[in-house]
């Protein structure tokens, strides 16, 4: 069966996106726990911060694949989120480790609601894009098939 680079990037995106969905789920749950006082903000930040960069990097990786395979539509679809991620990390509080969450300001109601909303929006975005990638994968295969025949 034919398997071109586009299809490859889509199947990778599909797999990675599944991970991202879990990331954002974890994110949402973590902030919900914070809001309901189940967790100490210091511990919560310690568990959240290590996951921030991996998420950003994974997201960028399959977009690089999209760029390489010429899937411009998919790339543009993701560009706003990439820009948001870069900006978010650029404006993070002063900290020595990785991550963007600061336990001293995370309990601020503004921050908390913002982070929670961000988690939900990302979850929705990743879910939608999951199906989009699936669709893109099929289309890519179909196109390949048509070219062959």
């Amino acid at each position, binding site marked *: 069966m034919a398997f071109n680079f586009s299809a490859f990037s889509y199947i990778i995106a599909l797999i990675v996106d599944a991970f991202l969905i879990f990331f954002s789920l974890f994110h949402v749950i973590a902030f919900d726990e914070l*809001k*309901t*006082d189940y967790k*100490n903000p*210091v511990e919560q930040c310690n568990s959240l911060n290590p996951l921030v960069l991996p998420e950003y990097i994974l997201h960028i990786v399959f977009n690089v694949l999209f760029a390489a395979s010429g899937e411009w539509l998919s790339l543009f679809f993701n560009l706003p989120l990439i820009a948001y991620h870069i900006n978010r990390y650029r404006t993070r509080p*002063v900290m*020595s480790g990785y991550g963007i969450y600061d336990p*001293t300001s995370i309990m*601020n*109601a503004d921050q908390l609601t913002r982070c929670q909303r961000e988690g939900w929006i990302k979850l929705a975005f990743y879910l939608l894009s999951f199906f989009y990638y699936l669709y893109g994968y099929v289309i890519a295969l179909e196109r390949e098939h048509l070219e062959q025949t």
Partner: protein
Amino acid sequence: MSEPNGVAMPQTTPQYQFNGISSNNTSRGSSPLPQASHIPSSQLPPLKSGIPPSQLPPTRSSVSGLVRNVSQLSVSSQNTPNVSPSKFSTSTPNEEKLRMSELSDNASSLVPNPDVVPVRQYVSSDALNKNIALPKASNINSLPSNTISDTPRAVPSSQLNMSTPSRYFNENGSNFTNVINGSLQSNFRTETPQNFIPMQNSQVEKKSGEHGQNHSGKQTNPTLNYPQQISTFSQSNTNTNSFSRNTPPTANSQLVSTNQLQSCSVAQSNIISNSQNPSPYTFSGVSTLNQTNQTHPSQFNLSQSSTLSSQNTNSKPPVQVPQNTISKPSKPRYPQTLPSNLMQPQIPGGGIPPSSQYNASLHNPNLLSQSQAESSQSYLNPQVSFNNNSMPPNQSFYKPQVGLNGPASLPSSLPTKPGISANRYPAQAQVPLQNPPGQYPQQQQYPQQQQQQLHYPQQQHMQYPQQQQKAQYPQQQQQLQYPQQQKQMQYPQQQHSQTGPVVQSGFNRLWGTDSHDLLQLPNILPTTKVQPPQINLGQDALNKANCSPEVFRCTMTKIPETAALLQKARLPLGMLIHPFKDLNYLPVIQCNVIVRCRACRTYINPFVSFVDSKRWKCNLCYRINELPEEFQYDPVSKTYGDPSRRPEIRSSTIEYIAPAEYMLRPPQPAVYLFLIDVSRLAIESGYLEILCNILLEELKNIPGDARTQIGFLAYDSALHFFSLAEGLNQPHEMTVLDIEDVFLPTPDNLLVNLKDRLELVEDLLKLLPVRFGNTFDGSSALGAALQVAHKMMGPTGGRVTVFQAALPNIGPGAVTSREDPNQRSSAEVAHLNPANDFYKKLALDCSAQQVAVDLFIVNSQYVDIATISGISRFSGGCINHFPLFKSSRPLLVDGFQKCLRRYLTRKIGFEAVMRVRCTRGLSIHTFHGNFFVRSTDLLSLPNVSPDAAFGMQVSIEENLSDCQTVCFQAALLYTSSKGERRIRVHTLCIPVASTLNDIIHSADQQCVVGLLAKMAVDRSMQSSLSDAREALINAAIDCLSAYKFSLNMGSGSSGLLVPECLKLLSLYISAILKHAAFRIGSSTRLDDRVKAMIDLKTKPLPLLLQSIYPDMYPIHNLENQEVIINEEEEPVPLPPRLQLTARCLENKGAFLLDCGDQILILVGPNVSKEFLNEALGVPDYASITDSFCEIPLLDNPSNARLHNFINYLNDEKSYPAPLHVIRDNSPNRIVFLEKLVEDRLENSLSYHEFLQHLKTQVK
């Protein structure tokens, strides 16, 4: 920390669960609280208005008793009334506005009595506001259609009215007496007996014009009815006002006469009013008419009261039947009002405003009456009924009025108004505003109103009526409006809201002349301390039980019902708390079971309600809880039975001695560790010797018990430990050179028991300055020292005190100098944020181990406070800063010594947590202060000190319309220095308000400024300094705009109107822009700026305000000043506070500036020789040296006066402020002059220029 928290307040979530149980109304109705709630917020406001009690009393005195009775009655029977009003009010903003306009009109008519007006006006304004709020609802119903702006609300009015009337009718209908009672109650509720007094002419006129037509069928003269109601209200208000303060008996009598005339007219009133109504028609613009119409029916029932309205219709004045004593001779009013209006207009801002205020107060009554009538016809009706049936009651209540009423009050009475007006003014004047001058002229018009006022004066809430009146007035005539405007100034919000729709551009313009036009008030500062506004819960017992504003203070004395309303008011909602303040009286309770709500863990407090003697209902989550048997026992009287006698129920600030379940570990001992910087800079500054001397003196006074431990650690580029082991002859020093990976050289004897090793400790303190006297090590390893301190203290927790003199430039946490001295005055300030997160992370570690770190910074160079302060900010510590410290500068040394002594000996709480709970529907949004936020409502405070204050922003997440009050409870769980676990609980209860006027008029300007300052600091850290400055200016603009909006004024109006309660806001904001934290243009060291910002976040409000806007007093003529007696029974001269401008300085004077943390005295070159010799103890002017920082104690009266005065100022501080006497020709005078923040400084605007800027921005 976490452990204690868990223990203290394990379950916060439960509250929400119970939230579901929102059976507020019913439950509350049964409970006492509901009663408190009964009093409509609108009613309450009058008190809040800040009207000095003295001002109000006159009216109250007569009325008060009635009021109380009423309130009680109302409580018993009338939870619903309150509720209904609020609902109505919400529903019918338009009406409110209309009413407002009417009130304003009325007010204007009343205006004539300038004298009385000022104070009373304020009161009345509050009352009006309150009244208005209530009335509004009703008014809304009636007027909706009429109300121009708020028509939407108003439109439904008929229905609304119906509903409200029905209630009223029900109440009223049953028995006249009942009705009367109801009316009384309603009045009381509103606090505006005045309300009853028919709204005066203006309202009547307006309403009559509009509604009269509509409802004419029902009521012969709807307008009349309305007027009556309005007038009644207004009169009541005005009367109350006038009575309360201004109205001398004679004046009252006069007023009464007029009122009587009016009332007579009113009595017949309705009819008369109708006749009068024509005039109202002319005024038609006022929406009040509609309201009046609706209300009229009820009023008609009340018939007599309606006469008041007739008064409004001055044209018919005479007619009126005196019988209706209640109804004030409204007939004259029109004429009166017109004159008054004319008068007012004539009187410019000053004179007129008062009159307008008076009018407003009068009007307000009207408005109130209208609003009440509208919103609660029942109220009006009751009033009316009182009037009619109970003319006697009215008389009794308002004897003066009755008297007035009795005499046939004819329009002619109006001419006589002066006296009457005076009376009115008194009532009105009692209202906070006071624009005496203009008012008298208007008096003629006012007389009627005044009469009404007189009647109502007793009723407290002239204010509401005033609003209505204002609305009416505008309708009546612009002239009237002017007076009203003045009054409006006081009550502007109320009036505006009601009048908003009604008010027309012409009106607006007229109103523009408000006496509280900032641009026309050069001397805005009161000569005495600004008192915090009172929270009025409607019950004396509850008001007394409420938390002291010194401890717990909200930016508003009424909480907006919805977030949308808060948004409209554009005021920050938040609390400032000083939880561990040193208190003179604090009930301490030790019991087996601390009674708390099982759901939300709220401590029982004075604002809970008892379902029966065995159960109580939580006022935060509304869960019903069991009372333990023990709680039936009253420890004071040693009797059983009545739980309400318990101290927990009698005082909202209380301390419990916590049983074992509040401890996760045995209470820790007091442990103190001192980290001493001994680098070269530190030694050069010479602080070490001073420190050691003070420590030696105060060692025995350090709080603690037999377990108290103490330790010392010196550091430069190495760490110097001191082992104080038993058996040593002298301290044993161990130096650790490895600062990258710190360790403890010995496990024991670094922290030792203070009692056991006192001698060794003293030896060490004597040795330290010598030991390090010749250090030339330029490095300072603060980070390593803190790490090792954390290791030493970790197992126990405690307090680490750091004395830092140099930039920590070595080892972990090293920072480099970031400040560019050339950028000190630039507009954009960089480096406000920490350079690294080492100190913050370490602080969190410390916090988890119950270790707090306090900083004493005695730097002569940049030490990057922005970075190193993190160690204190997040561990609950405090930061003290002594810039450019040198032991050779006596002024600085004096300040350092006093601060250090206070620090060492003050009370301290260890391993503390503070949880702040609030009523369901509210949530804490952001905390300000030094702490670590452990969860949404829990602050971790390893140490808590009596000088630490906190702020929090509150957001409204759910509609509060089914609550009459909301509560905030702060519980501080701590371990005392004696090893006792204690809980200090503060509970603050605040009523809920539903109208914009109420909200704006309930603002606490000082608290608003305190919170804004904290928010601005956050903004400057997160964004930039210029953003923060802009936000502050926008806050001022928003407030003014919101107020203007609430006045419903067009864009064409001139001037910068502010309500009484916010008149200093612009001044404070212009001052804060010149505060070291936010100023630009003048050279400010980065460290000083950051420290100033930290102070803004952590200082208690009084000190905060003094640092923003210091108090300046003239002290060269203390012998001529007012004298008060202090606690030691010594006479203390109390000079008036001066504005901070060079205008107030004189060559021949000496001036004292109290900045909170220091006191400056500027001596003018031509000050009298006697003052120099006797008071200051110097031979001549030239011998005042630059280091004159202590006034000698001499044996002469002027010296004693000065000392008494300075001691009096110091009494309010936690420690005596260092004093600095400055000659006018000394270079140090700049220190004094830069505090004159109203003047133009370098690049910053003067206060007047700032106002001009605001004016261009306010839309």
